[in-house]
């Protein structure tokens, strides 16, 4: 009889949640630190206040756009309308201002419209579950198409809209923007405040906990009287609002409206969520993780640009980063470990 000693030490079935959280967060930090070191070694001027400012600025846009994606991922949904709402907001705001609306009023109108599109998206996605992906994509298309029809009415505008952007909006999100005299644009502060608030909300409010509950087990959540429909509608509304906000802030950044400005966010919002460690199947993760994912993604892009890689090469590298990330922690635990 052959007997062999089994002395393996693996953290199988249901290790402590703290440990898992640490795992995904420490992977994120290691990646970030690794990228920063690489950048410092390979790219002259990588570690400089200017570069830090530009990285944080770009991260802020991505971070704001990823708020909705994170919330959706937590219940197992994906919002693919984000890039279109960003693009739509980016051209609707200047054309409303050209039409004579004062900037603050125009911004509120855009924000409300973004929220409404999100709400429709959430309600319809929930009712037609299984088709949620194509639903959000379809509504995004419809919204951005409608905005372009509006902007081209009686004007030479279409996908590109020029309008004088007020100085304060420029200051909010331009490279050389100032936050109460400090040398960085206020949008970074806006992002930080939203991130902290959201992190707190997710852990300390009924809304936050019911989101995790729905993501973890729909039936068990229903037994507790949590309305899945409400949760879906609310998070998609938040996603719509945040996308509209991002679109408007990007106007201050670029100075002119362009409908395609949101396009990169289709991939990057999902990538930031996955790299951060939030499961696309729902129930685990959070916005803190996404913040890490956003930073990793932005620093990586900055590094690749600094190394002189072309845009296609950057795309290839960022795309490939997803593979190990999914392999490491975005998978669902094996069925035997769920038992």
């Amino acid at each position, binding site marked *: 009889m*052959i007997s062999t000693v*089994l002395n393996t030490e693996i953290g199988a*079935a249901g290790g402590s*949640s703290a*440990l898992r959280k640490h795992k995904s967060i420490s992977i994120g930090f290691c990646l970030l630190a690794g990228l920063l070191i690489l950048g410092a070694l390979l790219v002259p001027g990588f570690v400089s206040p200017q570069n830090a400012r530009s990285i944080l600025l770009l991260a802020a846009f991505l971070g704001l756009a990823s708020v909705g994606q994170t919330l959706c991922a937590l219940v197992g949904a994906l919002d693919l309308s984000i890039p279109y709402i960003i693009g739509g907001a980016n051209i609707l705001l200047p054309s409303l201002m050209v039409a004579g609306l004062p900037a603050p009023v125009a911004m509120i109108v855009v924000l409300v419209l973004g929220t409404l599109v999100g709400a429709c998206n959430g309600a319809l996605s929930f009712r037609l579950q299984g088709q949620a992906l194509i639903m959000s994509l379809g509504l995004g298309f419809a919204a951005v198409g409608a905005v372009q029809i509006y902007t081209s009415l009686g004007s030479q505008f279409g996908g590109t809209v020029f309008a004088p952007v007020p100085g304060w909006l420029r200051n909010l999100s331009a490279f050389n923007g100032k936050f109460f005299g400090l040398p960085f644009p206020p949008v970074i502060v806006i992002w930080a405040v939203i991130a902290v608030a959201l992190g707190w909300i997710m852990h300390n409010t009924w809304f936050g906990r019911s989101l995790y*509950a729905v993501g973890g087990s729909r*039936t*068990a959540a229903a*037994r507790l009287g949590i309305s899945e429909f409400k949760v879906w509608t609310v998070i998609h509304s938040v996603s719509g609002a945040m996308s509209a906000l991002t679109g408007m802030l990007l106007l201050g950044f670029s100075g002119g409206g362009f409908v395609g400005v949101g396009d990169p966010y289709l991939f990057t919002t999902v990538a930031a969520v996955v790299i951060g460690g939030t499961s696309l199947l729902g129930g685990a993760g959070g916005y803190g993780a996404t913040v890490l994912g956003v930073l990793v993604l932005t620093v990586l892009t900055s590094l690749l640009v600094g190394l002189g890689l072309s845009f296609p090469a950057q795309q290839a590298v960022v795309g490939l980063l997803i593979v190990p990330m999914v392999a490491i922690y975005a998978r669902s635990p094996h069925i035997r470990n769920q*038992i």
Partner: protein
Amino acid sequence: MGSEITVRMIDVAKAFGETRALKKCDFEARAGEVHAIVGENGSGKSTMAKIMSGVLHPDAGKVTILGEKVASPVDAKRVGLTTIFQEVLVADEASVFENLYVGRDGVFRSQSTGDRRTEAAEILARLVGKSVDLDQLAGSLPLSIKQWIVIARAILRKPQVLILDESSAALDLDSTLRLHAEIDRLRAEGATILIVTHRIAELVRIADRATILRDGITVGTLGKDEITEENLLSMMTPADRRASDATEYASRKKALEAPLILTATGLAAHRSARLFDFDLPKGSIVGVAGLDGQGQDAFIRALAGIIQPFGGEVKVRSVDTDKMVPLRSLDDAANLGVSYVSGDRKREGIFPQQSIFENLAIGVYRKKLGPLGVIRKPTLKPMFKREVDRLRIKIGSPSNRITSLSGGNQQKVLIGRAFANDPQVILLNDPARGVDLGTKRDLYRELRLFAEKGGSVIYLSSEIEEFIGFADRVDVFFGGTLFRSLTGEEIAEAPILAAMFGKARDASVDFDLERTA
């Protein structure tokens, strides 16, 4: 007999985070024997079974199955070991036939379908007691048949070692007898059958030997003649615990004369069923029994506000106004203090990615909300501690995932969730499914205490022995309606069984429980 040793475990230990599921486990089983593994919830039975099947790897110690080491479930099957797990793992979207042979075909070789169909039909007919259509979708079948599919799947592999992990938990009496016949057949062919169970009565009848686990340690192995209820209990439960449980509960007929707290009128489980009324006196424990699918499940769900009954009305006495208020939804149930505990903890109970604390506390968040839906967390810690102590839940750290607990302890957390709301009525839908005796006793004691303090309990169970000495009244369902209410001395095995089979009150029921040797 006395033949070769097929399974051997020496000094095996296994921990999940802080929870040490197995501390020191020594075990031996031979070919041609039925060997039982017994222990309370969280004593490590399931972990032991999973280590043998290669699902889990031990932290320390040696494991040999049929002379080989087993590193994965696939490995185990290659060696000749098959496990029937506690969970009913059936693909609902596939046919019965596909479910039976799932994972059996290699890429290039497969047995002829014709042979398989005959073999499958034969074995299912033997197990279920009637023929089953092999082309039906498994999802359309009741739980009890799904359970048979899982068992048949294992037997079709012709295992040399078969592990049954609480597999008879959802089977009724008749089915248990058929399962035993099947086990006898396998034993005669020289297979080793390991039964992981808490049903002591079953063990007395069928096991050749029994190994007892307590707190992750194998405390001993009993031979055929030593397997008695007393021996098993005394080895499973620590002595101090037995003493405290010794007090028998007095008959509480009075409870049934108290004012009603819940009434249901004109209910029916389905369209063609006879209408019935139901009432629940304050401070009483009413048991609900019935064979699989007689409407009792729909009934208790309707009381909880989960589903709408076909007509009729459920009313509950409001705490504030002392008037009977209709209960039509989950929200009504929550407002009226009606809590529901499901026995199907995996599907409608736990949140697998969340902590133990979160899983228990989430039931009360709604009552602890400040402005803007902010949860007042400081109040929750004492509540959590109270429930954990009260139900004697074995946990490591409260921040560990709920899935680090054994099945029985997960169930206790869910019962704690229901208790934490300070309900006036608690509805339990087969909560003790797959739960051992010690845990059940903890549960009965707590429900008794709850009832003595004025709480009311409706307790649905598939195991009738649970009601005896516990329920004040037992309502038996048959044919989609409340068939008979039993009280006092009628709460005994024979009258309950008779009612479950729809027999008249005086008809004698003769169930031969003894195995014909």
